[in-house]
């Protein structure tokens, strides 16, 4: 049976549904990260628990969307732009799921920190600031994904350096703390874990931005530096 216009319409709406689901999952991960960071900075244990529990929902989303992608590939055999969309959905979902794991890690570590007693955490303000930067990047990445805005995505890819610098600055300061007062080492190490998780969240946000460029332009810009890409320079 040759495909009719109706078949195409159905396919488009299937694809749109899955895309919406990815963005809903993104929203869930956004709130999960926010809860984890808020719990860390304010000592709100409920927020930390929410961040840990919500991870299960995030995982369910991943399974659900992967299944839907498999269905679309098997039933419709998409090509060109549609195929790129389906492939990038699968990859974006993986990135989001990893971010969820990182958020859970932050929440768990924060719980340990808080359980250890009064929170005299060195450089906590810097960590929260880095987390805000990471959250802003995730928001921009998801916005670019929703709007299929390759320009915004490329801007975001360039911004990734910000968070890397932030992470390095935190590390440097923590090292001086640990050298000055060895009693802070266990706390400082926990903070390093958290800072690393935040930096990873930024990396995943960048990956999502790269998927957006891939969907729109069809060029795979992963693992290439900004210099070798005239379009980004």
């Amino acid at each position, binding site marked *: 049976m040759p495909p009719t216009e109706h078949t195409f319409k159905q396919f488009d709406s299937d694809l749109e549904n899955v895309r919406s689901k990815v*963005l809903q999952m993104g929203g869930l991960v956004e709130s999960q990260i926010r809860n984890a960071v808020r719990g860390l900075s304010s000592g709100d244990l409920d927020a930390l628990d929410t961040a840990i529990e919500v991870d299960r929902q995030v995982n369910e989303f991943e399974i659900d969307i992967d299944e839907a992608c498999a269905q679309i590939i098997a039933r419709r055999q998409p090509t060109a732009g549609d195929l790129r969309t389906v492939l990038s959905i699968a990859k974006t979902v993986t990135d989001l799921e990893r971010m969820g794991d990182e958020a859970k890690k932050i929440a768990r570590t924060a719980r340990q920190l808080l359980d250890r007693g009064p929170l005299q955490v060195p450089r906590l303000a810097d960590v929260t600031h880095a987390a805000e930067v990471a959250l802003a990047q995730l928001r921009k990445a998801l916005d670019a994904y929703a709007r299929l805005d390759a320009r915004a995505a490329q801007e975001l890819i360039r911004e990734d350096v910000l968070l890397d610098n932030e992470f390095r600055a935190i590390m440097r300061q923590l090292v001086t703390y640990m050298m000055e007062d060895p009693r802070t080492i266990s706390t400082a190490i926990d903070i390093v874990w958290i800072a690393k998780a935040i930096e990873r969240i930024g990396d995943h946000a960048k990956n999502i931005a790269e998927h957006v460029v891939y969907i729109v332009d069809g060029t795979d810009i992963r693992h290439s530096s900004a210099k070798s890409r005239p379009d980004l320079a």
Partner: protein
Amino acid sequence: MSIFWVAPALRIGFVVVLSLTALVVAGPITALAILAIGLFGFVLIQLRYLDRLRRWLRAPDVARVPDGWGAWGDVFSELYRVHRREEQVQLRLGDALKRMELATQALPDGVVLLDRELRIDWCNSVAERLLGIDRVSDRGRILTNLVRYPGLVAWLGDEPMETPGQPMVIETTTVPPAFLSLQVARFGEHDSLLVLRDVTAVERTERVRRDFIANVSHELRTPLTVINGYLEHMVSGDIDGALRTRAIQVMFDQSQRMTRLVEDLLTLSRLEAGDNPVVDSPVDVTSMVWALLEEGRSLSAGRHRIEAEAAPIGLRGSAEELRSAFANLLSNAIRYTPEGGLIRLTWKADGDGVAYEVSDTGIGIAPEHIPRLTERFYRVDRSRSRETGGTGLGLAIVKHVLLRHQASLVIESALGRGAVFRCRFPRARLLVDGVVDPRAVSGRVPASA
């Protein structure tokens, strides 16, 4: 027969008469030729006008309705009238639409029109700002793809058709986050109208209130737990001489702490009450500073060096309130400065006005805590401030006293570098002749805890 038919009938009649005349004069062939040429010309003219009409219809323009000959003139003028009327109706409609749009733009609330698939159809500028969407470029995009608050999709889908249901409060992902209250109303077949209101301020007050109650209960419960514990032991009788004396001392301390807390709470609520105008009598701050210096030295019991410097400047205000605020800042400095530190009290002219300043060489305050210090029960380090006996309300009281005197509190500090608390009073609060007549000052206020 209408007038419309007269002109064409006359023209056709003229051709027929001409050909009949030719039939009589020149025979049937000439007559037929004339008839054919006449009718042919007639058809040609009609076609030409028809073509003009077609061309005009392709790009209708009232100013350029073609002129017509004969019956076409009628048709064209009729067309002109219809079109003119339509244009006016359209103009009026456009005006009405523009007014409606302006009205919705002027709404203080955000408005978004959504279709059945939750795609954005239209929104006003408030909604654009609150949700970070663009009316033009985001038209036709699914709203929940751009506003990704968990549970929003389900809520939008579940809302009942007829009655507007409970509003939903979402938190935006902007920095700092804003809280929006959403309400949805259905209209038409499957469309919906989303109304959003910024409730960040409400949400914040609500949180402050909740935190406050939780904090007060917590602060009262801690001493009560201690007292209860000892009392239980005493009731069961297994407590002997020495322990008993100690228990009574601890219970006494705890009940004093509770008293202090309740007193501070009462002071705060009195300061906040709107119907309590600030006393406006002359205050001899200079003597007050010297008295505070003595009190500070006895409180510190020789553990710190305390110095004071006071210019002879008087202030208008409430001696009692100012005293409690100044004493509060001093006792904080003593509490947070390690043994051997230096604490300075200064009362001197400061720019246009005058300032009371307490500086210390204590542990200092990290920058992220400074803006929140005057919040009730805000503690930089929970365990520390409680063991030093603070109620967590001191700086809140200071802030309120200063507010009532149009003064401001400036805090300068960094971790490990001590702190400076400066209360700056405006010029309007200064006593005109500078110094207070000692006789005019009512008796010194008794020291409060």
